[in-house]
Structures are given as C-alpha cells and as structure tokens.
C-alpha cells in the first residue's frame, strides 16, 4: 500500500540530509584529526624512544671506544715490542757473555759471586795461580764483552788467588 505524506517532507529531508552530511563530514574530520593526533603522539613517543636508544647506543659506543683505547693502551704492542727487542738483545748479550765465560779456562778460574749494578758487573772468585788469573783476564779482554775491565782486588790465600774485578759495559 502506498504511503502518503502531504507535509513538505522532501525539503525537510533535504535539509536533514545536508545536516547529516555536515555532521558526518564533521565527525569524520574530528575522527581523522583525533586519529592523526594519536598517531603523531605514538610516533613522537616512538621517536623519543628511538632517540634515547640511539643516545644510549652512542654512549655505549663511546664507552666501547674508550674501553678499546684503554685496552689498546694496556695491550700496546708497539712499545712492548721494542722493549722485548731490548730484552732479547740483553738476553742475547748475557747468553753470549755466559757462553764466552765458559770457553775461557773455566777449569782454572771459578767465580764465587756475580753482581750487577747499573752497567757495572762485579766478579768475585778464585784462581789457582796468578798466571791462570792473568791468562783468563787477557782472554776476557780479547772477547770484548766489556769495553773496560778493572781489577779491584787480588789476594793470595794458601793455594788460591782470590780476585775481585769489575766489567763495565754500555748501558742497555
């Protein structure tokens, strides 16, 4: 069955629809704005979080770099290498020294003490006779282990000659 409405409803409906359209647009705009604000806030929060994380990472990196530098300083291989070289050289010198010491009339001369102070090495020992002592001393001078050798003390006791001399070598 038809429905009749002689009230000017078409105009009213048009006005209502226009008002509804405006409302819908307004609500849509409001919702979009609210959504944008929420999104902006969320992104801002995320960005801040990321910034904080980045700053923390940078700090950690700095700390790491500083730590590495400290480790590098601690385990600085360049300086120890040279030091080791010098040590090795010194060791070599000492080895040569002891080797040569053994080569020269070891049976006729014996050392009772060896002491080192800076670039001076003090030898205390005994020899059978003054001639053995003289030969040993001469041979040692020939080895050039010490650029300078000084006899400090010679003392005849019973059947042995006690001696004390110093060998001066260049500073390491």
């Amino acid at each position, binding site marked *: 069955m038809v*429905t*009749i409405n*002689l009230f000017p409803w078409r105009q009213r409906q048009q006005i209502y629809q226009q008002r509804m359209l405006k409302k819908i647009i307004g609500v849509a705009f409001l919702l979009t704005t609210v959504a944008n604000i929420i999104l902006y806030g969320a992104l801002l929060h995320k960005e801040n979080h990321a910034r904080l994380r980045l700053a923390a990472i940078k700090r950690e990196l700095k700390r790491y770099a500083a730590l590495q530098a400290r480790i590098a300083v601690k385990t600085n291989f360049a300086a120890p290498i040279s030091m080791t070289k010098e040590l090795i050289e010194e060791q070599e010198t000492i080895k040569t020294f002891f080797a040569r010491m053994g080569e020269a009339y070891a049976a006729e001369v014996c050392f009772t003490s060896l002491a080192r102070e800076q670039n001076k090495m003090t030898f205390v020992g005994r020899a059978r006779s003054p001639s053995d002592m003289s030969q040993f001393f001469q041979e040692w001078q020939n080895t050039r282990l010490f650029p300078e050798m000084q006899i400090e003390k010679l003392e005849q006791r019973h059947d042995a000659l006690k001696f004390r001399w110093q060998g001066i070598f260049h500073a390491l």
Partner: protein
Amino acid sequence: MNQFPFTSQITIGLDIQVDAIRLLQLKKSRRQSEILHTAKLSLPQGLFSEGKINDWQLLTSLLAEQVENLGWQNLPTVIGLPAHLVRMQRLSLPAGLSAAEIEADIFLQLQQEMPGLSEPLAIDFSFLSAKEPDVLEVLYTAVREHYLAAYLQCLAVSGLNVKIVDVDCYALKRALTSENLPILHVKKHDSEFMVFDQHSLIFHQHWSAETSEENLLRLKDYWQIYAATFREHPLKQIILCVEEVAYFAYEKILRELADCEIVSPALAMSCDFAVAFGLAQRELPAW
C-alpha cells in the same frame, strides 16, 4: 525511520472530525505497539463548514489546551486529512524523471483537469509497480496549500510537532486490515465507503446524512455505483466499522445488497479511534 532500532518511539495520532478531536498516544517498539493513552475532545458546532475547518482560532485554542493538559507538547504527530478534501490520482510517466520533473508533470495534469485552478497545491506522490519497465506509475495526492498551511500552523501553535500528513482512509485501512478489504466506515455525521486494490484506494465515497434511513439509502446508491463500475471485482467481504448500536442495521442492509461476508474489525479499542490509531502507526521519518 527509527534511528535507534532498539528504543521505543512515541507517536501521536490526531484525527479531527466534525464531532470531535481524537488523540491517541502509541508507543512503538521493534516488536509491538502499545496504546498509552486516548483522548476525545468534543467540538462545538460551527467549527466545521462543508466538511472543512473554518474556525482555526477556536480549534487552535481547544487543541492547545488539550495538548497542554496531556503534556504532549513537541511529541511527533501524524495527522490525517479527509479523503474528500484531497485529490488522489494515478499517472503514467516515462521512467527516469526526477522528483521536480514528476511534480511539474503532476501540476500540468492538474491544470488540464481543472482549468480554472489558480490556488497553489501541496503535492505528494508515490511510485506504484509499473507493468512496463520504461513507464513510471505514480499515485499523486494533492490538497489546497492554504488549507494545509492553516492546518499545520494551528497544530504548531497548539504545541504538536507534525511529521506526517496522511489521508484518513489509508489510516483507517492500516488500522483495520492488512488485506485489501473494502471498508464501510459509519461516523456520527458522515459515512465513507472505500475499496482498495493492492496499491491504493480505487473507489471512495463520502456522504453526510441527517438520519440513518437516509444514510442507508445513500449507501445502497454508492454500492450500486461500485457494482456497476467494477463488475470484474465484486465485493465478497467488507469490514464494517460502525458503533455497536447501529451494527446490526448496517449488517442487515449489506446482506440485502450483496451476498458478502461482514468482517468485524479486530481492534483493541473502539472504532471511534481507528483512524487515530492508523495514523499513529505510521513510521516516523528520521528528520
């Protein structure tokens, strides 16, 4: 259309007849309707003249007082115009016309039918199911704009918020039957005989009679006119909407006129409020 389908809606059905104003408050929810209140206000003689309201001031004051007493100010209201004051007609138009174009065609049609018509008219139209796809079947309703404007002005001043202006015979049909049964509506001062097809009113007669004998004679005349005009649609059933005291007299005359079944209206209230009930049943627009 109810914007909030899970809430109930209160509608006022207002039926102004020659003898009285009938107001009915209906609460409509999704599943059921409930009549909350009915009110009847007798009208003094002289308010109507030739079936039309002529003392708007008096009607406004009476109605305003009644509305105020009931506390129904600004409630959505549906009113009904008497069918004899409106012109209802079918019109076939080419499909695809806009509402403005249809209105223009209706005005043209009305001017052809009533060459001396100079008064502005208020028009509404509904679409009927057309038999051909390129044809638009329109049922239009027209009423004098001044009369409608005066009516709306009166109701607005009275405090009612009019949403729909219906035609009383459609309201009566809505209240009495869901089928397309003819209706004989006998009122105190006038009577109506109406027949519907599946879409709209196809036959309508309205008359006033001083005595019940005269009324019955007029009914016989109109019945015969219908029978002669619509031979292919003989009436087999009719709804008789009349006061209880006069029911048997009309039943008898109808049985004499034709061998048709008399159907009593299945109404929860008196036939008196049938039109107001039918009006209040209208679904309100969103605006």
